[in-house]
C-alpha cells in the first residue's frame, strides 16, 4: 500500500478512542485536630510519607495494586496505635 492510499484510509475512519491517563499521585488532606493544623499533600503511587503529630507519627502509603491509601499511627515510643485503609 502506497503512503497516499494509507492516508486516505485514515481519513475514512470515523471513530475515536479515549485513553484514561493513569493517576500518578493522590491528594490527601491531613487534619491534625489537637494542633489545629491542616496539611495538603500529594502522595505518589508506591511512595510512603511520614507526618508528625503531637503524640506520634502518621505513616501513609498509596498502593497502586489495590488503589487504596494505607495508613498507620505510631506513638513516640514506637508502639502501633492504629492502622487502616481507604
Amino acid at each position, binding site marked *: 500500500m502506497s503512503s497516499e492510499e494509507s492516508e486516505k484510509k485514515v481519513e475514512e475512519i470515523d471513530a475515536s478512542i479515549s485513553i484514561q491517563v493513569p493517576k500518578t499521585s493522590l491528594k490527601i488532606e491531613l487534619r491534625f485536630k*489537637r494542633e489545629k493544623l491542616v496539611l495538603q499533600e500529594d502522595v505518589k503511587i508506591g511512595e510512603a510519607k511520614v507526618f508528625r503529630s503531637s503524640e506520634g507519627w502518621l505513616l501513609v502509603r498509596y498502593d497502586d495494586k489495590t488503589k487504596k491509601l494505607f*495508613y498507620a499511627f505510631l*506513638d513516640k515510643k514506637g*508502639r502501633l496505635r492504629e492502622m487502616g485503609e481507604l
Partner: protein
Amino acid sequence: MVTVSEEDVEKELKLHDQLDLVLVLAIGSSPAPHLVVQKRAVLISKLLGVDSEAEPYYYGPYSETITEKLQDARNATLFRRRGDGKYELTLMGMRAYELLMKRLAVEKGEDVPRFIETLHRMSEDELLALTYHLFPESFEESKIKGKVRVMIERFKGKGLVKAKREGEKIVLEVDA
C-alpha cells in the same frame, strides 16, 4: 583509643551506594536481627525514595539485594554479623549513622531522622504488622498471613485516625 574523624566518614560514605547507607540507618545504634533489619530497611528506603528491590516472600517484604549487602565484605567497614546472628554497626558505621541522621535532618527535615529513631523502638511483631499493612502484596507469598492479619485487625477502628473521601482527595483526621 581509636577515633574516626568526620573526614574519614565522608570518604567512607563515598565508597558505598544508597542502599548500603539505608542499611546503616536500619541497623542503627543497637544490634538487630536479620528480619528486623530487612523490614526497617524496606520502610526507610520507601521514605527516602531508594529502591530496596523488596518482593513479597514468606515473612513479608524481602530483598535478596539487602541480604547480599549485609553479607558483602565491602560493607564490613560499616557493619558486621555477630555470633548470635544480629547485625551491628562498626565504629565507622556508628559515626556514619550519626552523620547520615544529621544530613537527613538538613535535607529532608527533622522529622525523618526522628521517625527513624522511633522505628528502632518498635517491637519485631509490630514492625512486621506495619510492613505487611503498608505493603499489602506481602500477603501473596506469606507463610504467616493468618497471624499477621489478626495483629493488624487489633489496630483497626481505634478512633485516632479517621479517613474519608471528599471528592478527589482523601481526608485523614488525626486525633492524637
